[in-house]
């Protein structure tokens, strides 16, 4: 039992620190901003613990949770995301809400929820942690009560989330009805080796998969479950938009990969077909709509939809020999630093100028050179130009598609790279404004130190992933090993 608890120590650490932050906030009225550092301390501790445990294997609570490298990888991603988000929130939230203690507490709880989701190996546990993630995020999106946009975003997010999770629950119940189990490994066996020909029910599996996909698709904002994304991102406090674009998405991918690869390899041909189509539509739609945006948060929202389309390509190209899932993991890590970095820069800009309009970024290179330079790096990475992490991610994901060696996958890869070109247009439109045009207001911007730190870390990591990718590739490769990838039947 004690050993089981040891395996859970990242979750326990996060839970303790979340409660600690909430408790301290209650007890000492003046601590508010110091609590951010307590929360960051908790996140760092959780990362350290996770790193120490990396490589161990185990199954907890009668198969509800597994502990494996794949889960650890996503736990590290969640903690990194939260740490950077808290760092970028300090200055921003200070001027916007008096309820900052709860804010950091909720963020830690959301992280805890993601770490649970990363290890969930039973449909019941998946549903519970899924709702845990959603509930904390609903509150965080609508956190600025005085701001109607924030409330609007929160409500939309909630309504969409409630509907899709109900649909997902229906899919789960169908799967349970077919196989008689909620455990992923048992479902897999029941589907691979049906007890009798009558028990094999492919006509019921497909609806079950599609219904569950509604839930996953909502979390990672796949088309057609994406409509909440731009409104929630625009309305949410910007650091929370940053968090939403990375944390819950990573969790959504973790659970999608685990469910589809562990439980449903028998139907890989079917879900690969569905996901390929969704991937194509998602990246193309995201990019085409992003071109027309005038608000940078909405642009980044659509861009993040497009990025998810690329990541899905890696899931589609999952095979025992291919780099598909490795590519997904690398892409998500690179995307964590890049997208979070871009959002942190947006946080800094909107904190100082109160604007999220793309047109107001004109001449930024004169007003805040570091910010503008960092944004150029992030946009390069999002567009997949070396030497950045984004290039590495795309290299592996598109590589996996090519590696599959079939016409369909070549087609997917070509659509993927053509999409990168479309995306370059709107990413570099911002660069054009920042670097080529004069500023309307020449005053230089003094960025708070915590934001400078966050931007510097994300920019450095984006470049390091592009220039020295070997350790990251090794990490991702090791994490993939624990998730069994079967060849399509």
């Amino acid at each position, binding site marked *: 039992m004690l050993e089981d608890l040891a395996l859970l120590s990242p979750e326990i650490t996060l839970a303790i620190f979340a409660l600690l932050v909430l408790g301290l906030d209650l007890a000492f009225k003046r601590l508010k901003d110091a609590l951010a550092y307590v929360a960051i301390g908790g996140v760092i501790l959780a990362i350290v613990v996770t790193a120490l445990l990396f490589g161990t294997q185990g199954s907890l609570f009668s198969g509800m949770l597994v502990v494996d490298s794949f889960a650890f990888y996503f736990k590290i991603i969640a903690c990194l995301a939260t740490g950077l988000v808290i760092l970028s929130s300090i200055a921003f939230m200070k001027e916007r809400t008096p309820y900052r203690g709860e804010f950091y507490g909720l963020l830690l709880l959301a992280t805890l929820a993601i770490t649970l989701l990363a290890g969930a190996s039973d449909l019941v546990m998946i549903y519970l942690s899924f709702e845990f993630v959603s509930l904390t995020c609903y509150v965080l999106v609508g956190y600025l009560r005085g701001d109607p946009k924030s409330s609007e975003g929160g409500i939309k997010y909630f309504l969409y989330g409630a509907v899709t999770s109900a649909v997902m629950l229906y899919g789960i119940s169908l799967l349970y009805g077919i196989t008689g189990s909620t455990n992923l490994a048992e479902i897999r066996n029941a589907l691979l080796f049906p007890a009798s020909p009558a028990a094999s029910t492919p006509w019921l599996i497909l609806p079950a998969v599609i219904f569950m996909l509604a839930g996953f698709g909502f979390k990672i904002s796949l088309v057609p479950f994406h409509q909440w994304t731009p409104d929630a991102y625009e309305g949410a406090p910007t650091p929370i938009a940053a968090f939403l674009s990375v944390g819950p998405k990573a969790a959504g991918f973790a659970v999608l990969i685990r469910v589809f690869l562990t439980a449903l390899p028998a139907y890989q041909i079917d879900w690969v077909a569905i996901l390929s189509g969704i991937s194509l539509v998602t990246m193309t739609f995201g990019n085409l709509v992003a071109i027309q945006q005038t608000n940078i948060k909405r642009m980044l929202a659509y861009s993040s939809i497009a990025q998810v389309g690329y990541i899905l390509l890696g899931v589609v190209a999952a095979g025992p020999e291919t780099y598909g899932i490795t590519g997904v993991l690398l892409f998500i890590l690179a995307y964590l630093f890049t997208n979070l970095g871009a959002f942190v820069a947006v946080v800094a800009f909107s904190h100082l100028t109160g604007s999220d309009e793309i047109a107001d970024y004109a001449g930024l290179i004169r007003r805040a050179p570091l910010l503008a330079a960092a944004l150029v790096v992030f946009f*390069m990475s999002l567009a997949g130009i070396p030497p950045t992490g984004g*290039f590495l991610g795309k290299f592996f994901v598109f590589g996996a598609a090519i590696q599959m060696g079939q016409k369909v996958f070549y087609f997917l890869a070509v659509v993927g790279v053509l999409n990168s070109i479309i995306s370059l247009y709107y990413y570099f439109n911002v660069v*054009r404004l920042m670097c080529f045009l004069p500023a309307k207001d020449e005053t230089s911007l003094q960025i708070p130190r915590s934001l400078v730190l966050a931007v510097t870390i994300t920019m450095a990591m984006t470049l390091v992933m592009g220039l020295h990718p070997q350790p990251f590739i090794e990490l991702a490769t090791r994490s993939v090993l624990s998730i069994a990838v079967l060849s399509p039947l």
Partner: protein
Amino acid sequence: MEFPYLTLITFIPLLGAVACLLIPRKYEREMKRLAVALSLIPLVLAAILWLNYDYTAGTMQFLEEYAWIPTINVHYRVGVDGISLPLVFLTSLLTVICLFYSSYTIKERVKEYFAFFFLLEMGMVGVFVSLDFFLFYVFWEIGLVPMYFLIGVWGGPRRQYAAIKFFLYTLTGSVLMLLAILGMYFAEGTFGILEMARLRPFADNFTLQSLAFWGLFAAFAIKVPLWPFHTWLPDAHVEAPTAGSVILAGILLKLGAYGFLRILLPIFPQAFHHYAPIIAILALLSIVYGALVAMAQWDLKKLIAYSSVNHMGYVMLGLVAAASAIGTSEKILDSQAMALNGAVMQMFNHGIITGGLFLLVGVIYERSHTRDLKGFGGLGVTMPVYYGIMTATCLASLGLPGLAGFISEFLVFQGALSIIPPVAAIAISGVVVTAAMFLWKVIQLIFLGPLNEKWADLPDMQRWEVITMAPLLFFMVLFGLYPTPILNLINGTVVKLLSGL
């Protein structure tokens, strides 16, 4: 462990970029001097390499290799042979000249400008020395970003449009190239360019071979640029600042031609041979169309930009002639070698000649702020030095014997005539048109005729402008009269390349 010449040539510019950014703005003059001084180091190193290169062997030399990403077999692998060495030298030479010229003409955002220029040099040299596809691709892309900024920040009135057009066009080619590279990697398990030429990926599957061929072709043809992929070029050249145009014409276009030579020809000789007729027609169209459209221009810079399409067409003609003859009789090998030698030398010559022409456009534009050929006249009297230098450069460009351009064009035509006579015969008409264009439009309209009073007191070229042009003129005359040093260098490698096909 040998002295890491190539690594130094590639990465000293990076050092230069960092230095330029770190020096405070008040020391701008010192920064400019330091930048020019730093850019001389790669030039000196490249010259040392040229002198020490063993051209009788014609092999890859000065190799360096370190593991970079072992999991996917990516190496930092660099080396030069007789094809890449002249281009590395050309890159370092033109960078020094451009930085020197820019230190007089660039007044705004100087630090950034110099930093971007150094990054650009790093990207270009990197492409020429890379022997690993991954590395090649990374450098190929790195070069795009600084050029985008050079056009977009320091360019002409339509610079924003030209900058993004340049970026989108070239990126379209490069991502298709990336897919082809990935395809080859998963077929053969290596990113080594030389290894790939030995393994010949997809030798048994012509469909896949064609796909990979056209993927790479897209990247290189856009860069060269081959008709009909050339439409980014006039915009980019016209809007770029003078030094940017010099680098664009002088080196960036060579990246495409270099890709044909280093990658497509050795790795896919079969597909290249098979599709040679199509490419020959595109090359021919580039030559004829480039010349005729150049002739129709009244903007001096645009005229030279289109003449680049024409001149790079000669390079492609030489290449495609060599490719057409793959697998035919042994006797034709001489013509193949001649055509390829001409193509490689034309790459170098076009770099110094057209680079020079763009500098000379800059000289007149700085003074008059117009490039409209109808507005000049009679400047030969008031600006004799400029008249002389411009005439010499134009004559080199139109291929007058005794100057460098003649040798390479002659070799290309000589080689091509015996392999693909009809194409070569039509292509020669391009020479006539360019001759007419340079003599009539440039020399006659600017320098001869009655003096336009409006420009009566334009000052002649200053000393620093003459110094900028001097090295280019030197090489035009040297390789026009005595091409042996460069032809020896190229020939060894070209013969080796052809015998391997």
